[in-house]
């Protein structure tokens, strides 16, 4: 070498490298060695090993979530009778579509509503915006699961304006709503200044039905028949009336009495009228929540409220109450 060589200044000094740090391969030496495309770190590409790791991690997380959901579902099933697969749970699972097993028979609309004259059978409900009919919203939800229902909301000229949640209470507009004849049933809700809720269906053959309880009974019959045992049917009817006359419209004393009755009835079974979910449960739940008395109640009633909510049909009603 032609350069001037300097003798090492300090011979044999031992350097203790710290062992707690990562050891990186020497960047410079690597450069000289490689010809393989091992490292191609261009444009933010991830090292395939890291990618594989990420994929594994995602897989594990997904399985964890599924497990969690399944456990929750099972927990709810244990506490809530009659719900094999919960609507709220199924929406978090990817592929399953739940069918509501509560109402097992799909009825023949022609038998119930009269001969099909080739046009949409439109049920018209006139409701006062000051007292939104929660039971009917719940029943509408159930109807939509059974039939192709065209739902529309109108505001009558007797009412000057209506809060926006009342306009969207029947859910988003169906994609095919421009073609009325493609639907089996029409559900037209008109917010109007009426003293009492009324329903009109066939003006020639039917007189208007007045009162939320009666309209609820009519709509429920489209979903499932009343229990065949007359005693149970009467019980359902009496609970519906109690709900509307005493829970919704009654004084505080009456309401307290009803709550006590509810408590004792629910002590005997999971639902108000035995082992089947019925109109009575829908009516009582809605009237209770309208009063806001869902919080401070007895244990049985609390359990029953939770079961109702787990069924997922009361979603629209709860939205409206917010």
């Amino acid at each position: 070498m032609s350069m001037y060589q300097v003798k090492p200044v300090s011979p044999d000094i031992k350097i203790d490298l710290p062992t707690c740090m990562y050891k990186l391969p020497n960047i410079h030496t690597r450069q000289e060695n490689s010809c393989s495309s091992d490292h191609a770190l261009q444009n933010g590409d991830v090292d395939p090993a890291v990618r594989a790791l990420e994929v594994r991690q995602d897989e594990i997380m997904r399985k964890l979530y599924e497990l969690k959901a399944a456990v929750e579902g099972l927990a709810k099933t244990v506490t809530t009778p009659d719900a094999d697969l919960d609507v709220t749970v199924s929406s978090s699972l990817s592929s399953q579509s739940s069918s509501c097993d509560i109402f097992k028979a799909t009825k023949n609309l022609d038998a119930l509503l009269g001969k099909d004259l080739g046009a949409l059978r439109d049920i018209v409900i006139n409701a006062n915006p000051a007292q939104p009919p929660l039971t009917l919203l719940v029943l509408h939800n159930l109807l939509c699961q059974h039939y192709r229902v065209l739902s529309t909301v109108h505001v009558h000229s007797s009412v000057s304006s209506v809060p926006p949640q009342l306009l969207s209470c029947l859910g988003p507009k169906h994609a095919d709503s421009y073609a009325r004849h493609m639907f089996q049933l029409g559900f037209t809700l008109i917010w109007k200044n009426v003293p009492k809720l009324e329903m009109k269906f066939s003006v020639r053959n039917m007189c208007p039905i007045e009162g939320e309880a009666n309209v609820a009974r009519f709509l429920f019959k489209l979903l499932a028949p009343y229990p065949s045992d007359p005693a149970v049917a009467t019980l359902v009817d009496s609970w519906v009336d109690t709900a509307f006359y005493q829970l919704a419209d009654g004084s505080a004393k009456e309401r307290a009495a009803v709550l006590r009755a509810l408590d004792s009835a629910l002590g005997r079974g999971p639902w108000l009228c035995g082992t089947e979910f019925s109109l009575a449960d829908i009516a009582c739940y809605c009237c209770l929540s309208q009063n806001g008395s869902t919080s401070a109640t007895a244990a049985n009633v609390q359990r029953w409220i939770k079961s109702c909510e787990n069924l997922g049909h009361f979603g629209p009603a709860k939205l409206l109450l917010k």
Partner: protein
Amino acid sequence: MTKEEANGATEEEQQAQSKKALKKQQKEAEKAAKKAEKQAKLAAEQQSADEDDFAKDRYGVSAMVQSQQKPDRALVRVEDLTPQKVDQLIWLRARVHTSRAKGKQCFLVLRQQQFNVQALVAVGDRASKQMVKFAANITKESIVDVEAMVRKVEQKIESCSQQDVELHIERIFVISQAEPRLPLQLEDAVRPDGDGEEEGRATVNQDTRLDNRVIDLRLPKTTTSQAIFRLQSGVCQLFRDTLTKKGFVEIQTPKIISAASEGGANVFTVSYFKSSAYLAQSPQLYKQMCICADFDKVFCVGPVFRAEDSNTHRHLTEFVGLDIEMAFNYHYHEVIDSITDTMVQIFKGLRDNFQTEIQTVSKQFPSEPFKFLEPTLRLEYTEALAMLREAGVEMGDEDDLSTPNEKLLGRLVKEKYDTDFYVLDKYPLAVRPFYTMPDPNNPKYSNSYDMFMRGEEILSGAQRVHDPQLLTERALHHQIDLEKIKSYIDSFRYGAPPHGGGGIGLERVCMLYLGLHNVRQTSMFPRDPKRLTP
């Protein structure tokens, strides 16, 4: 007896004559004396009258206003006569609604459009007996200039619009005198139609009203005509405002055209220099050309001429058409939504801002208030057929709705949905004009719609055919001469967007909104096959 006898006789005669003459003279003298006495008396009275008429220059018939002078005088409006103006000396010009003399006083009611006020001329130091007499004799409807002191009244004057004050007249001049015999009496014209027949008092029938529109329209707002036309003005205003807010452009289309647009039968022909032309039946063609010229959304307000020989309660040969046309993106329901929203905004505007007018009209022509739904109810033709069949009407699937069926359908819809305004969609293709777009899924039906108010049709509209090929096919199918509509078809050959629209008649909408029964009540100077004046 000879001459002497004759003489004697003539003497006698003469004597007799002179006696007669004397008597005659005497009589004449008496008469003259009496006459003189009378004249003297009259003169004396006159003089005394003249002497007593110290107010001679404070009343009278003014010379015709030919713009002789320009006095710096402010005239107060009757509606501004409130207790704030008490003890002020003001001038005003109004019509004499009534005048009633009572001994030494004369009560007048002075009217200006819908406002009226009580005025008083009393014998005193400002007014003389002659002035009171003059005031009492002013004919009704004359226009007068009055200088008066505004005075507060203890008891409210119920019969006038200005109830807290009355005028004490100091000077009154007639500016324009009305003839003493009016062709119709205001009290009669104001009376609701039903009442008069029962009590035997006269009501005025429609023809008399229309022949004397000038007086008929003067009826103050406490009755009807002004209210109806103010409401009509409101409809037009709301139409323009709503559409402008939605981004529409107002266009003016020609009314003298070369080819009949809707069909040859109902069109007026005019001589056009050496050839002839037609009066436009609708601005259809020009609206569509504007859309092809990329105006996107247009509307126009203008007269429409239909030579239909129909003498019904709802047809006029000339009326004001409010027409809309717009391009849409994918579905013609966008057009329906736009039109129905405009109509609902108009109804809301009328409901919120014109309640006094609506109440005024319903006092003379009682009817139910107009009801509607928002968003507007839209039924399909098949549903309407089902409803009518259920009610016992027999109709084929592709039949058009006759007028009684339309009315029945209106009643059925009102019973079920409680709305006076709705849209009927998907009419059968066979009953619509050739430029209507057929339904894509069912060739029997079309993308067309009608809108109804109180069971009567007010708008006919559709998605238009924008493809020249299909348009030619449809025209041939309807056996229309292609030569006559060549320019129409040509306008779509250079790229035309899908579009649709419709048109309403202003008079019919007003009539149906107020629940009146004849479209002539909402047209100021109506035209029909039997009426060309005023």
